[in-house]
């Protein structure tokens, strides 16, 4: 109704299933860009980040099941063990759903502090599985979670802007 929603109602913005699916697909494509060398080490897990966004903003639309399926796709693409990404993403989604009210109440910078442990946990799950199977951990891997947490603010701003109905500003 109103063109400008109050700040604490931003999570009420509409999100169509197509938009959610498209954002997840774009995130996966970003993950699959041919990253190399240092960029690969610093690469944030875009899929995890977008999943976390949806789990905190639309917890009844995007839940653990969808996160798990995205994880399976990531597993096939990365040739990791079947279920390795899926487990990490499921844990991440659970964390996002549990914390979604708190995250929605805080402003963006404080949100970053809230979601960073969740990302770290998801990265930790992935690394722990790898450690169980292969017996070693590459510690640089965790740098990705820091970069991902830093990207939380730009990503939230971008997705909120895309979700805001554009026709409203022109029409009464």
């Amino acid at each position, binding site marked *: 109704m109103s063109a400008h929603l109050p700040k604490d109602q931003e999570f*009420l*913005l*509409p*999100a169509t299933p197509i938009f959610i699916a498209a954002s997840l*697909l774009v995130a*996966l*494509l*970003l*993950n*699959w*860009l*041919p*990253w*190399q060398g240092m960029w*690969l*080490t610093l*690469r944030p897990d875009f899929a995890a980040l977008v999943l976390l966004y949806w789990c905190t903003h*639309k917890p*009844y*639309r995007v*839940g*653990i*099941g969808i996160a*798990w399926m995205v*994880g*399976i*796709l990531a597993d*096939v*693409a*990365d*040739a*990791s*063990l*079947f*279920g*390795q990404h*899926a*487990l990490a993403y*499921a*844990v991440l989604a*659970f964390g996002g*759903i*549990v914390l979604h009210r708190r995250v929605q109440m805080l402003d963006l910078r404080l949100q970053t502090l809230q979601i960073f442990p969740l990302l770290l946990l998801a990265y930790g799950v992935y690394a722990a*599985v*790898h450690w169980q*199977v*292969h017996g*070693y951990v*590459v510690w*640089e*891997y965790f740098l990705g979670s820091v970069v991902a947490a830093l990207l939380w603010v730009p990503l939230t701003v971008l997705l909120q802007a895309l979700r805001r109905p554009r026709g409203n500003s022109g029409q009464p």
Partner: protein
Amino acid sequence: MEHTNAFPFFNRGPSAVVRLAFFSLLSLLLMFVDARYQYLELGRTTLSVPIHALQRLATLPVDLWQQADAYLVTQGSLVRDHTQLLQQRTIDAAQLQQLQVLQAENEHLRSLLNVQQKADYSMQLAEIVYVERDIFQRKLLLDKGAQAGVLAGQVVMDDNGIVGQVTRVYPWLSEATLITNKDHAVPIQVLRNGLRSVVFGSGDTGQLALRYLPISSDIQEGDVLVTSGIDGTYPPGLPVARVTRIERDPAYPFARIQCTPIAGVDRQRQLLILSGLPKLPERPQVVEEVPSDQPKKGERGNL
């Protein structure tokens, strides 16, 4: 109006904890089955077809950039490369002549001794589609798959030496594990004196490690390591690595030896997949030879 979504008191199925438990168990089960057995390869192959199409889509901008880059090569560098290649070709041709003479002689001698002829292996040119983004395991995806007759276990090399081994085959792609992958083992022989050992990947693309060689063993910096071929996976005589640093610390029973791969493990774009490799009759020889060095055999279980 999306307000309905904010009301949690409608029945929305099982709670988040139950879902998490269910999907975690499912993932753990899948991981266990995937790590232990081969049952899931079919599912993986099926899912991989659309996913690899998307992955190719993701690499498209980079490919286009590289093609544009290649298109804009200057005349000068083309001429220089061309003369260089011509010179190289002349040198290679001369060496090839000698090689052919030697090969004929070798064949003759082998037939005199009634030893099995060493077969020539055919090779296939494949291009790297993709370098794996998983920083735990550097893998390459090559653009030849089961449709082109690639099999798991075939050797991948470039023009200088061994790069890795095909570990998984999809319909149109295949996945190669690098020799520098952590704990990937290649049985080798020192070219200079025939000393046999196993070289292990270190997880870093520029390094290999030669473990379990006694301090007193005859190995020098600059020694070239070639495949020994006693595993039946890698054909004999292909260059693998060059020894760069040896630390002989009397406190440890083994020398610490570092090597660099001879092949450009992370530099090439075109690679060769060797096919038509040995020749079953030679296998029994391998089995006979293995008991002489039992510890190495145990290590090779990782392959």
